[in-house]
């Protein structure tokens, strides 16, 4: 755990992230360029036709939606259990990104659903779970904003994130169960043909790099904003 705490110091984090950022920005741009090029060069699927290209922006958004929540949960544990100083900031910074990925997963899923099932919203279990996940993100962000005292807000939000984490598998299970009861539809059943795998993996990588870049930028911004507030408070005394 010690290596984690070495970067708990905001100065260290600023230094390290500042050094790494130019590379992640470049890598993100390259990954998107390559991923999109390959994605638009694939042949249409015999079943889904050209809508298979939606996979390249739906699946990565899907995965990031859940991955970011996990990142938030890890930060919440670090915050509550080890009192790691930067993890509150990191968790808070991750939330809007998670919400955006979730919303994109839902929107791209709906746009995929219309040609596939004839309806934008057919209560597909994955999309329904994502809608609930979106509300979990909103609740988390609302709680941070509602509580004035930052320390209290951080810890309350951390508790909420962990309760949410425990509930997410149950929610997914219950929605899947509900779906079998009502015999709904499901996107993306079955395996992915290899020709689609490479662009998909590159796009997933691109999304992950984008998240890492934006997350670091957001944390760095929060650190600077906090320094500014500290100076202003000292000046007011």
């Amino acid at each position, binding site marked *: 755990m010690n290596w984690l705490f070495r970067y708990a110091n905001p100065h260290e984090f600023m230094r390290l992230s500042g050094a790494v950022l130019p590379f992640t920005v470049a890598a993100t741009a390259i990954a998107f360029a390559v991923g999109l090029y390959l994605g638009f060069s694939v042949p249409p699927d015999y079943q889904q036709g050209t809508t298979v290209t939606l996979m390249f922006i739906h699946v990565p958004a899907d995965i990031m939606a859940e991955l970011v929540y996990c990142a938030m949960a890890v930060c919440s544990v670090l915050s509550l259990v080890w009192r790691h100083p930067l993890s509150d900031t990191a968790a808070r910074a991750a939330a809007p990104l998670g919400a955006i990925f979730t919303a994109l997963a839902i929107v791209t899923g709906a746009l995929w659903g219309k040609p596939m099932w004839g309806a934008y919203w057919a209560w597909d279990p994955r999309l329904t779970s994502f809608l609930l996940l979106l509300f979990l993100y909103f609740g988390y962000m*609302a709680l941070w904003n509602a509580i004035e*005292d930052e320390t209290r807000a951080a810890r309350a939000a951390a508790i909420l994130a962990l309760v949410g984490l425990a509930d997410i598998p149950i929610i997914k299970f219950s929605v899947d*169960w509900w779906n079998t009861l009502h015999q709904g539809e499901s996107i993306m059943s079955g395996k992915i043909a290899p020709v689609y795998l490479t662009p998909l993996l590159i796009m997933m990588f691109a999304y992950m790099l984008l998240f890492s870049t934006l997350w670091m930028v957001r944390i760095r911004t929060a650190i600077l904003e906090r320094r500014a507030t500290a100076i202003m408070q000292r000046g007011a005394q």
Partner: protein
Amino acid sequence: MSPFTTLLLRDVKLAARSGGSAALALSFFALVATLVPLGVGADLQLLARVAGGVLWVGAVLAALLSLDRLFQGDYEDGSLDLIALSPLPLELTALAKISAHWLSTGLPLTLLSPLLALMFNLSPTPTLVLFFSLLIGTPAVSAIGAIGASLTLSLKRGGLILPLLILPLLSPAVIFGAGAVSATMDGLGGQSALELLAAFSAAAVLLSPFAAAASVRLNLAG
């Protein structure tokens, strides 16, 4: 009488008085059951099909109404600080409050449900399943609701974000509860749904006191 029972009985008495949360929850539940048919029409077959879902959502929302006051009253007049200092562990205090909330809202709502199911033309067997699903599931609503109540403890208008926090968390209860009724009507039997609901409720009641206590401590410390 143990401190646990004292606290529980006191909270139940507070809720049961006229104008208290018990009456409010029941009225709200009945109003929802009245408004929905007014909204969707009196097609008895349709109402029977949606009864499980509508009544479950109605019950959850009704139980929600009094949740933001779960800890608030004691927090505002300082009794919560005293309760926290008492030999009763805060987790048990939370459990006592959850139990009191269920006894004064969840249970009455469950008892009223067969009457409301009648308004929805629900047949006897699904009504029985609805009754049991509410009986088993409303403790989860009180338990998870307590987490939301304790997190928003220090907020003056905490009641506004409380539903946003806990309704997504409660979705499995609604799904399994109403699903049990649907499954019964489809001839599949509601047993597996009720079992899943029971597991969810048990987990919720066992684990939420810890989260709620942690949140209360957090708010008292500041």
